């Protein structure tokens, strides 16, 4: 108690110096929180967009499909099978089936390579809200020969609602896949590449086209809690009766995305590291002068009977006080700021939109409010304090009482 009082008083011997140090910690914490929040926010959005419109968080495939992603390796899974998956694994909320293959798609005059994708619209929309991206027409009308195509594809094939699209390709095990379909809707797929090629049709219709009755390329597994996807995958892979199938996480299916995120995080980490080092030296300087200018006093305190380790405690407490005031003030400043940006993402303007869209991202900087950041800061600053304070503490233990008291 008395030591804490002493530390607190010492802190305010030189108010200006202490405030400068506190401000530098505040600034570092604020900047770190801001950067991390922005970084993590954009990653969350990137994962959401990319994962939702491509692999899903977890998916089930035929064991052969991973190495040879061809329709010939499509898994056999009828309605009963899909229901069984949900029944067997309580962690799974619902599943999203897909049958897809590459085929030629032709309008009146032009032909393009397209991704013919059979979906169950209800669960597909539930999963990624693809319906929100419908620009014209309907997501299926109940006909037996209908397609919804990407706006990009529609443009390049010069097609609109009510026009015909001819598909020609290869079906299951070499069967010929050909058909003529009516365009009933235009959808703007968020991934520009796919927008140029996407042809959606109801799943049964696709299965018929590709002569792949009750077959799926994959079944997306949607966990009740998205972050539990690894558990779901592990559960399925260990579950008897699923030997012919293999479940994967999105990280396994999209290693490039994982790399991108890691690279991004490493960059931020490097920057923060430099920031912490700079700030660390600032605090170090303050603590060092605070220690050096008081060596005589330390000599006196040890002379009259204060143990060195108690003195070290005082210096340590001073450092902690100063740094934690910086952290707390930094966090207090950051919270309203981050809350604001969380609800009002920064727009990057028109120019960025296309570039960002390439990566499946919106042209806004989103922020994350993961509470982890806040206590991370506390831990980091505590660690820095420990490092910094070690030098003055060593000095206190080495201090020659007579020399110090004589000054």
């Amino acid at each position, binding site marked *: 108690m*008395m030591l804490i009082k*002493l530390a607190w*008083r*010492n802190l*305010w*011997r030189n108010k200006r110096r202490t405030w400068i140090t506190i401000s530098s910690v505040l600034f570092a914490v604020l900047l770190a929180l801001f950067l991390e929040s922005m970084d993590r926010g954009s990653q969350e959005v990137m994962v959401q967009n990319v994962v939702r419109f491509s692999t899903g968080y977890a998916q089930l495939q035929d064991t052969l499909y991973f190495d040879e992603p061809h329709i010939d390796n499509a898994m056999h899974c009828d309605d009963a099978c899909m229901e069984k998956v949900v029944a067997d694994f309580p962690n799974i909320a619902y599943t999203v089936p897909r049958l897809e293959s590459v085929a030629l798609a032709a309008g009146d005059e032009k032909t393009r390579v397209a991704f013919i994708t059979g979906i169950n619209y209800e669960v597909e929309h539930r999963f990624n809200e693809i319906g929100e991206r419908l620009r014209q027409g309907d997501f299926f009308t109940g006909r037996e020969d209908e397609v919804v195509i990407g706006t990009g594809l529609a443009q390049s094939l010069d097609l609109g609602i009510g026009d015909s699209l001819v598909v020609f390709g290869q079906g299951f095990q070499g069967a010929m896949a050909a058909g003529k379909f009516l365009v009933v809707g235009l959808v703007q797929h968020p991934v520009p590449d796919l927008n140029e090629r996407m042809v959606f049709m109801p799943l049964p219709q696709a299965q018929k086209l590709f002569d792949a009755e009750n077959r799926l390329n994959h079944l997306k597994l949607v966990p009740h809690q998205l972050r539990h996807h690894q558990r779901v995958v592990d559960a399925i892979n260990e579950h008897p009766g699923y030997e012919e199938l293999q479940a994967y996480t999105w990280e396994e299916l999209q290693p490039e995305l994982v790399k991108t995120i890691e690279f991004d995080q490493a960059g931020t980490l490097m920057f923060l590291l430099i920031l912490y080092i700079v700030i660390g030296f600032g605090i170090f300087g303050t603590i060092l002068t605070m220690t050096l200018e008081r060596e*005589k*006093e330390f000599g*006196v*305190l*040890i*002379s*009259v*009977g*204060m*143990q*060195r380790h*108690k003195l070290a405690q005082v210096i340590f407490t001073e450092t902690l006080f100063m740094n934690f005031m910086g952290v707390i003030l930094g966090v207090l400043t950051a919270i309203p700021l981050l809350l604001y940006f969380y609800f009002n993402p920064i727009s990057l303007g028109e120019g960025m939109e296309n570039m960002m869209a390439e990566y499946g991202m919106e042209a806004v900087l989103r922020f994350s409010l993961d509470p982890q950041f806040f206590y991370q800061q506390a831990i980091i600053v505590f660690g820095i304090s420990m490092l910094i304070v070690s030098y003055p503490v060593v000095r206190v233990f080495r201090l020659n*009482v*007579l020399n110090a*008291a004589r000054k």
Partner: protein
Amino acid sequence: MHVIETSGLYKIYNEDTVPVYAVNDISIQFDPKEFSCIIGPSGSGKSTLLNLIGGLDTPSRGTVTVAGKRIDTMSESNRIRFRLEHIGFVFQHYNLIPVLTAYENAAFIMQLQGRGEKETRERVTGLLEQVGLGNRLNSRPAELSGGEQQRVAVVRALASKPDFILADEPTANLDTKAAFNLLDMMKQLNEEEGITFLFSTHDQRVIDRAKRVVTLVDGTLHSDEHRK
């Protein structure tokens, strides 16, 4: 029993090159309730002897026994604890903690000893009133005169109820009036409460009031005079 006893005490600097015998074979005893001073020219070894007796320094040879305990062989941490419980220090430059008030400076040492709050408050306030600083309890050292600061320093040394108080040239930085006041106060504490004082000085005003005057020359004991 002697409260302080040194035997064959040496402090030699630069023993390997050009040896300086700062303390040269001193065997001396001090008894409780003494009011003694060590005098001698500058460089005669007064501070060195006091530092050895106070356990701030370790001898090159010989022994120092304080309150029946050999302090020259103690570990540093034990010596610090011993100082806290048995020895009061008054320094030439007052050496109060600038961020603590007069009261806190004196109370600090009792808190280090782990004394209770009530006991500390009563003793420290009582002592500060006794030395005429009852109205300066909450002043910081910078707000006090040199004489007042040195009284606080004496109270700090007294507060821990030490076996004796060591004071190295306590009046060196005081003007005549303040020096006399401090001396009177110390003498009063000695006569009325039996506090043992051992101080060094080359100030004639101080020497005149001492009951025992030990003279050092070049680190050796030159004379030891008891007065009535």
